[in-house]
C-alpha cells in the first residue's frame, strides 16, 4: 500500500469518526469503496472528493436544523406578537370609542348647558360610560370566537373603565 492510499484511508477514517450520524453511513460507503480503486493516487483523490461530499452533507444537515429551529422561533414570536397586537388594538379601539363618547357628551353639555345641571349627571354617565360599556361587552362577545385577542383587549378596557367609574362614583 503506497503513501497516497494510506493517506486516503486515514483521511476517510478521520472523516468517518467526525461525521454526524446522518452522514456516517455514506462516509463508511466511501471508505469501503477505497479498497476497490486500483491506483493509489486515484484513491487519494477519491478520499479528497469524499471528504468534500461528507462536509457538504453535514453542512446541509446543520443548515436544515438551523433553518427549522429559526422557523419555529419565528412562528412562536409571530404568534405571540400577533396576539399582543390584537389585544393592544382591541384596547385602543375601546379607548378611542370611550374618548369619542366622552367628547361628544362634553360638546352636548356645552351646546345644551341645561343638561349639565348638578342634578343631571345621569345622562352624562349614560352617554359616556354605560352605552360604550354595553357596546364593548356586545362586541367582545361577538368577536370572541374569531378575534379573541381583540375581544380580550376590548373587554379589559371595558373592565378598566368600569372599575374607574365605580371608584369615581364611590369617592365622590
Amino acid at each position, binding site marked *: 500500500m503506497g503513501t497516497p492510499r494510506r493517506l486516503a484511508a486515514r483521511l476517510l477514517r478521520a472523516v468517518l469518526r467526525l461525521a454526524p450520524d446522518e452522514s456516517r*453511513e*455514506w462516509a*463508511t*460507503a*466511501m471508505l*469501503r*469503496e477505497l*479498497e*476497490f*480503486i486500483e491506483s493509489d493516487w486515484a484513491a487519494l*483523490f*477519491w*478520499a*479528497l*472528493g*469524499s*471528504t*468534500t*461530499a*461528507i462536509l*457538504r*452533507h453535514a453542512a446541509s444537515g446543520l443548515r436544515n436544523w438551523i433553518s427549522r429551529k429559526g422557523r419555529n422561533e419565528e412562528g412562536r414570536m409571530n404568534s405571540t406578537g400577533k396576539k399582543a397586537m390584537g389585544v393592544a388594538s382591541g384596547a385602543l379601539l375601546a379607548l378611542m370609542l370611550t374618548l369619542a363618547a366622552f367628547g361628544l357628551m362634553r360638546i352636548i353639555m356645552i351646546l345644551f348647558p341645561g343638561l349639565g345641571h348638578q342634578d343631571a349627571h345621569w345622562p352624562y354617565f349614560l352617554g359616556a360610560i354605560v352605552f360604550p360599556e354595553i357596546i364593548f361587552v356586545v362586541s367582545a362577545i361577538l368577536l370572541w370566537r374569531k378575534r379573541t385577542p381583540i375581544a380580550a383587549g376590548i373587554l379589559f378596557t371595558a373592565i378598566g373603565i368600569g372599575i374607574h367609574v365605580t371608584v369615581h362614583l364611590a369617592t365622590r
Partner: protein
Amino acid sequence: MKLRLSPQTVLVLDAFLDQAEEWQYGYDLSRVTGLKSGTLYPILMRLAERKLLETQWEASDPGKPPRHMYRFTPEGLRFARANATAPASGGLGQVALGLVVR
C-alpha cells in the same frame, strides 16, 4: 422538494437506467459517469433522501468489507424515465455548457 436536474444528475440517472434492476457500486458509477466522488455522492445522497434510490450493504464473504450498493426504487425508476435523456454512453466529457451533448 424538487430535485435539481443538473447535467451530472442526468448522467447518474442515465447510468442507473442502463441497468435499472441491478445494484450498483459507488466507484463503478464514478467510472461509468466520469464523475468524481465529491460530485457523485451528493447526487446519490439527494436521490436517496428523496426515496428515488434504495441503498443496501452487500452481504460479503468473511474478511472482505461489505460495499454499499444502490438501485432505483419504483418511484425513482419512473422519475428517471421521465427525466433522463437517451441511454448513457459516455462520461462527463459529454457535458458541455450545461447541456448533455449526445
